[in-house]
C-alpha cells in the first residue's frame, strides 16, 4: 500500500468532518429535488450567497464581533440560513413558481425546459451579480479554531471542522425532525409524494413548494457558512459544490432526505480518501467517477425506490 494506516485514518476522519457539511448541503438540495423534482442549478450559488452572508456578518460589517472569534462565525453561519431563506422565498414567489408547481408538472416537455433554464438563469445572475457586488478577490472567514487542532493519537482533528461537524449534524437532525414530526413538515412530504393527491387533501402545494425551496436553499446556505470558515471562496465557488451536492443526493437516492445526508457524508469521505491514491487536483474527478458509478449501478441510490409503470 502506498500509504500508511495513519494516513488512512487521517483521511477518513477528515472525510467525515468535511462530509458532514456536504451532508447538510445535500439535505438542502434533497428537500428541493424531493418535493419539486426540479434540477436546481443555482443551488451552489445560494451556497455562495450563504458564505458571503456569513462573511459580512462577521468580518465584513462586524455585526457579530461581540460574540468573539469562536462563536461569531458559527452564529453567522446559522443566520445565513434565514437570510438566504428570505432570498429564496422572493425568487420562488416571482420567478421559480411560474415554471414549477403542480399544474406545470403536467405539461409535458415544456415544463422541464422552463425549470432548467430558470435555475440556470438564476445561477448566472447570482454568480455574476456576486462578482459585481463582492468582487473577485478570494476571501474567507478567519477563526482561531480553524488554525488549531486536537491530537488523538497520531491523528490531527481540525477544531474548526469539528465544531462545523457538530453544527451540521445538529442542523440536519433538526430538519429531519421538522419534516417528520410537524404538521407543516408532513404536508411538505405529502406534496412531494404525490402533488395531485395532496391537492385533493387540501394541501396548498404551491405554498408547500415555496417552503421547500426556501428551506432547501436556506439549509444549503448554513452549510455554506460553515464551509466558509474552512476555506477561501469567491463568487464562482458555488459550482465546485453543485457536483458534490448532486453526487451526494443521487448516491442517497433522489427524493430521500436521510439518503441525501448519508450520500453527502460518503462523498466527503470519497473526496478526502482519494487524495491517498490520486493527485490533489483529481479529487473532484474521483467524485465524478463515484457519481457515474452510482448512477449506473444503482440509480435509485441507497435509500431510493425504483418504480416505473407502463
Amino acid at each position, binding site marked *: 500500500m502506498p500509504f500508511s494506516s495513519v494516513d488512512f485514518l487521517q483521511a477518513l476522519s477528515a472525510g467525515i468532518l468535511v462530509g458532514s457539511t456536504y451532508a447538510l448541503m445535500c439535505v438542502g438540495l434533497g428537500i428541493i429535488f424531493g418535493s419539486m*423534482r426540479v*434540477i436546481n442549478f443555482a443551488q451552489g450559488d445560494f451556497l455562495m450567497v450563504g458564505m458571503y452572508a456569513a462573511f459580512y456578518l462577521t468580518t465584513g460589517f462586524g455585526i457579530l464581533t461581540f460574540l468573539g472569534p469562536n462563536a461569531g462565525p458559527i452564529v453567522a453561519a446559522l443566520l445565513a440560513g434565514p437570510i438566504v431563506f428570505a432570498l429564496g422565498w422572493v425568487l420562488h414567489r416571482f*420567478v421559480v413558481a*411560474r*415554471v414549477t408547481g403542480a399544474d406545470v408538472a403536467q405539461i*409535458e*416537455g*415544456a415544463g*422541464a*425546459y*422552463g425549470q*432548467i*433554464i*430558470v435555475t*440556470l*438563469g*438564476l*445561477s*448566472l*445572475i447570482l*454568480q*455574476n*451579480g*456576486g*462578482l*459585481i457586488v463582492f468582487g*473577485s478577490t478570494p476571501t474567507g472567514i478567519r477563526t482561531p479554531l480553524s488554525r488549531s487542532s486536537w491530537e488523538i493519537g497520531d491523528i490531527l482533528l481540525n477544531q474548526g471542522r469539528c465544531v462545523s461537524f457538530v453544527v451540521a449534524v445538529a442542523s440536519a437532525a433538526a430538519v429531519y425532525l421538522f419534516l417528520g414530526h410537524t404538521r407543516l413538515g408532513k404536508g411538505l412530504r405529502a406534496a412531494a409524494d404525490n402533488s395531485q393527491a395532496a391537492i385533493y387533501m387540501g394541501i396548498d402545494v404551491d405554498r408547500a413548494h415555496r417552503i421547500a425551496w426556501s428551506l432547501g436553499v436556506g439549509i444549503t446556505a448554513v452549510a455554506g457558512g460553515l464551509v466558509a470558515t474552512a476555506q477561501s471562496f469567491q*463568487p464562482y465557488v458555488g*459550482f465546485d459544490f453543485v*457536483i458534490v451536492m*448532486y453526487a451526494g443526493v*443521487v448516491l442517497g437516492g*433522489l427524493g430521500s432526505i436521510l439518503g441525501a445526508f448519508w450520500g453527502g457524508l460518503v462523498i466527503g469521505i470519497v473526496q478526502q480518501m482519494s487524495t491517498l491514491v490520486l*493527485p490533489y*487536483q*483529481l479529487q*473532484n*474527478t474521483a467524485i*465524478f*467517477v463515484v*457519481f*457515474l458509478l452510482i*448512477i*449506473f449501478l444503482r*440509480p435509485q441510490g441507497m435509500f431510493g425506490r425504483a418504480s416505473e*409503470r*407502463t
Partner: protein
Amino acid sequence: MRTRAQVNRHRWAILGVAVFVVLLALVLKSAYYQLILTQVLLWAVLSLAWNLLSGYSGYFSFGHAAFWGLGAYTVALGMIDLNLTPWVAIPFCAIVGAVAAAVIGFPTFRLRGHYFALAMLAYPLATLYVFQWLGYQELTLPMKRESAAAYMQFSDPRIYVLLALGLLVATLLISLTVENSRFGMALTAIKQNEPAAEAAGINTWRWKMLALMLSGAVAATAGGLYAVVQFVVTPESVFGMLVSAQALILALFGGVGSLWGPLIGAAVLVPLAEGLNAELGDKLPGIQGVVYGIAIILIILLAPEGVYWRVLDRLSRRKPASPVAPREAPAPVPIAPRPRAATASDILVLRGVGISFGGLRALDGVDLAVPKGGLYGIIGPNGAGKTTLFNVINGFLSPDSGTIEFAGAPLMGLRPNQVCRRGIGRTFQVVRAFPRMTVLENVIVGAYVGAANDAAAERMALAALDRVRLSDRGNAIAGGLTTRELRLMELARALVPHPRLMLLDETLAGLGHDDLDGILGVIRQLRDDGITVLIIEHTMQAMVQLVDHFSVLDHGRLIAAGKPEAVVRDRSVIEAYLGKKWVEQVRVAAK
C-alpha cells in the same frame, strides 16, 4: 414530416442566411465585429449539435462541452505536439467527437430523464480536471509565419467567418435531413413516448446512439475551429460549465427542436453578451452574465417555447392554416388470412414464468398456452399481475424464472423492438400516444418495422387506419382524440407491421356502451383475419362475449383456464379468488 416543397423552402432559407452572412462579413469593417460574427456562427453550430440530440429526442445533455473541448484540444495538441495542420485536425475532430459520444452513450443511455441529464453533466467536468492535471492549463497555438494558410492562420478575419459559415450551413443541412427522415421521426417518437416507440418496433437505443454520435461529431468539429479562432485553449474555456450551458441556452431561447431556434438564439444572445462585456466589463465585471441570466428568465416567462415557435404560432394564428384535405385512403391491403391450424398448435407458450419486485411476487410460475388464431382473454382484479405479464412477454421486463416461446422460438432476452419484429404487437393500459403527432404519423412510426421505404410506410399506415375504421381522422393531432379514437389509433399502430399476435392491455376500459361495440367489432375482425389476440381486462362482462378461451389471473398465478362458459360457471373458483361481487357480475353477464 414536411412535404418536399417545405423542405425546399428551408433549403432556400439556408442559402439566404449564407448570403446574408457573407454580405455582413463584407460590410463589417472592424476585425472585432468579424470575430463576434464568427463566434455567433460557431456557437450556433454547437447549439444545433445539442439540438440534434436533445431537441429532437428529448434527452437533455448538460455536457456538450465534453465534445467541444475534445475538439479544441485535438486541434491544439495536434498542432503543438504533432505539427498537424488544422485542415487535417478539424475533420479528424468529427471522428474524435463521434468516438467520445459512443463511449459516453454506451453506458449513459441506460439512464433516462433527470439521471441522464445529470450524468452528462459529469463528463466534461471530470475531463476538465484531468486536462488541468495533465498540465494543459493554457495552450497557445504556435504561430506559423512562413506557411500561415497551410496552418489555417489568416490575417483577414473574414476567412474565419467563411469557415464557420461553411460549418454552419453543413450543420443546418444535416439537421434538415435528419428532421425529415425516418431518423427524425424515430427521435420524435422517442421524445414523446419512448416505451411506445420501442413497442412499435423502433430500435430506440440505436437511434439515440446515432443522434448522440452525430451530435458529438458536429460539436467537436466546431470546438476544433473555435480553438483556431481563439488561438488560446484553456480547460475552463472549452470544458467549462458555461460552454454546456450556452449550448442549451441558445437553443432554448430560440426554440428547442427546431431547425432555426439555435441560430436565432446565437444571433441574439452572443452579440448581446459580447457587447455588454466590451462596454461595461471593466466597471461591472459580471454584467454580461447577469443580463444573460435575466434575458433567459424573461424569455422563459414570456415565451417559454422559444422565439421561433412563438413567432411561428403567431403567424399561423393570423393566417389560418388551410385545412388539409384528408388524404384518400387506398384500398385496404388484404391480409392473407392465415389458415387456422387444424390442430390447435400454440403460438405463445409460457412455462413457469415468475418475476418479483422487491418482496412482491408479481408473477408466480405462470403457465400459459395460447392457441394460434382466436381470442384469448385473461381477467383478474387490479394488481393481479396482468400488465406485468404483458411487459414480460414483450420484453419491457425480463422474468426471474421460466421460459417464453413464440411460434416455437424463445423470446427471452429480446428487447421490445425485437419482440415487435418477431410479430407481437401491443397496446397499453394507459394509451401511449405520441401526443403532438397526427394520427397518421403515430401509425407510420409503427410501420417503419416492416416498410421498405417511407412511402410504403405511409401506405401501410393508411391501410391499418382503414382496418380500425379511423381513416377519416388521419390528420387530427393525437392529443385531441377521444378515448375510443385513441384506443383505435393505438390498435392501428400495433397492427401496421402485420403482427401474428396482438397483446391488448385493457383496451375496453373506460369506454361507454356505444364505443364498446365498435371496438369489439374491430377486435373480432382481427381474429377473423388470422391474428391471434391476447386481451387482458379486469371487467368480465365484455370479455365473456368476446373471447374463445379464458384464464383467470390472481396474485400472480393463473387459477383457472378453459372455455369462457366453463370458467364463468366455476363459481367456486370465482368466489374463492375474486370475491362475491364477481359472482354477481357473472350472473348479470350470463343473462
